[in-house]
């Protein structure tokens, strides 16, 4: 449903059904187009699996946009530190370091935006790209930041964890493709951005965090080690020799402590590899999946018995490591190709 800035004689409803994730970007594009057509002041996209009623969530999300306090509003959740490992270990710290904003949830189906932002996005050629099929929400957030739209956050209850239709490998592949798309599209912005500006946040912090979902990180670690050994010749082409040596030492079961700097250097090496073009980005995304699995399982294994406060402190430290090592990525990215 599209809320217009002036009443219409008849209620117009635009329905854009889509079946599963791949059609999400088409639906969003249709909604944006409908918003532009009806000169909508604000657009809200809600996730049906979210908590609370649709009316409540729409009201909360639309308020700051309608008052023109902000042009893009993303939900923020009080997560358990062990929850959403892909977000906390990769997406959040990377977006924070590159784009210079403390955006908690760079991935998320729900958001609200101004009509101006929607019209701006319609002019972009992202809609036909592969990355748009799977993680358009990430691109929307980074686009809002890079194009200097006012971005804010709003506290929301964490969505209920329902099973996804995609496997972990496919999800990592899709998220990595989307990150690459954003990084390439916004290089002129993030090469100069620094620090991590806090975003204005609406709503009240739930304080009470839900329990984290449990999963078998030991099995994931075994899979990851096996896969990394298999793709060693490919990893050698992407990672620096010392990073490669440390990864292979760690995966041989040496039992070394959780190394944030190693992880960050791996992420930045892959990011730089997309620019150098030695390996196709689809292959890079496939190669990254075992490395993420290795990191995620190592994180869980090392922090399983730690209190949430200590784990949260580790996550904050990881974000700082990403920021501290950003010049390494900037230097690699700036190499003439």
């Amino acid at each position: 449903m599209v809320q217009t800035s002036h009443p219409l004689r008849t209620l117009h409803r635009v329905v854009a059904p889509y079946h599963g994730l791949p059609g999400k970007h088409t639906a969003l594009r249709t909604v944006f187009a409908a918003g532009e057509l009806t000169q909508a002041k604000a657009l809200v996209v809600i996730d049906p699996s979210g908590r609370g009623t649709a009316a409540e969530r729409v009201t909360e999300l639309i308020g700051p946009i309608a008052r023109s306090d902000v042009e893009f509003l993303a939900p923020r959740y009080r997560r358990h530190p062990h929850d959403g490992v892909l977000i906390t270990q990769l997406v959040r710290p990377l977006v924070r370091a590159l784009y210079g904003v403390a955006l908690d949830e760079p991935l998320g189906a729900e958001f609200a935006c101004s009509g101006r932002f929607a019209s701006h996005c319609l002019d972009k050629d992202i809609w036909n790209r592969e990355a748009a099929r799977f993680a358009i929400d990430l691109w929307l957030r980074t686009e809002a930041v890079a194009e200097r739209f006012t971005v804010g956050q709003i506290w929301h209850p964490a969505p209920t964890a329902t099973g996804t239709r995609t496997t972990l490998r496919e999800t990592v592949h899709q998220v990595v493709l989307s990150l690459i798309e954003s990084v390439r599209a916004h290089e002129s912005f993030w090469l100069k951005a620094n620090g991590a500006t806090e975003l204005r946040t609406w709503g009240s912090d739930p304080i009470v965090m839900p329990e984290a979902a449990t999963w078998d990180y030991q099995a994931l670690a075994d899979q990851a080690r096996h896969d990394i050994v298999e793709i060693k010749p490919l990893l050698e082409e992407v990672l620096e020799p010392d990073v490669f040596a440390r990864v292979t030492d760690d995966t041989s079961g040496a039992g070394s402590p959780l190394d944030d700097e190693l992880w960050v250097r791996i992420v930045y090496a892959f990011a730089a590899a997309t620019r150098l073009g030695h390996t196709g980005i689809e292959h890079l995304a496939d190669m990254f999946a075992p490395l993420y699995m290795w990191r995620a399982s190592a994180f869980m294994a090392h922090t399983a018995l730690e209190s949430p406060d200590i784990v949260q402190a580790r996550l904050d430290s990881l974000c700082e490591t990403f920021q501290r090592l950003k010049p390494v990525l900037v230097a690699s990215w700036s190499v003439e190709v």
Partner: protein
Amino acid sequence: MIQDIADALVQSWRNAATASVLFVPRLVAATIIFAAGFVVSLLARRAIRRLLAWLRFDRLSLRTGASEMLRMADMPTAEVLIAKVVFWMVWIGFIVSAVDTLHLRPVQGLVNEFFRFVPRFLVALLVLTLGFLVGNFLWRATLLASVNAGLPGARLLSGALRILVIAIGVVMALEQLGLATAVVLTAFAIMFGALMLGLAIAFGLGGRDAAKQLLEQQFRAKKERDTDAAPHL
């Protein structure tokens, strides 16, 4: 009789002198062509290296994996290799030309043969290069797909595929060169057929039960490997 012997000796000397008078200029010309060819080849090699550097050929060879393969084979870089090939082709052309200048009967027509051979050689090089590039690409794609699918022996499978594609490229290149075509093709066909037949017998008959167990294990392992992404988002 003595006069006849003397006449024969004089005639022989005259023939030798005439032949030398005819041969020496040719020898000098051949030497000049030989030396000039060396200089031209050096210049051609330098020009090719500069051209490849200007075209950033090193990045292309890095991207296609050629650099890595050459490094593993302890060979010079792709640009150096290409420059050397050009050097030798140009110089051999001049050497052939020099030899042809001598008008030696056993090697007459060599120039024509050489210049008929050069295009075939270039095409063979192209076929070999394409075979290598395709083999490398398939190796990488197969390795990643096999690892993600949890297939056992992913490196063996992808490595074998790469070797097979490169071998096909080598055979096609040899066929293009016209070097023992029948032998090479027959040997390749026999080897390939034997390999496929052996695999079919091994899996179809000898390893029937093992194949069944492997498939069941893979199916089970795939279910275990297909970790739900929900806790990670």
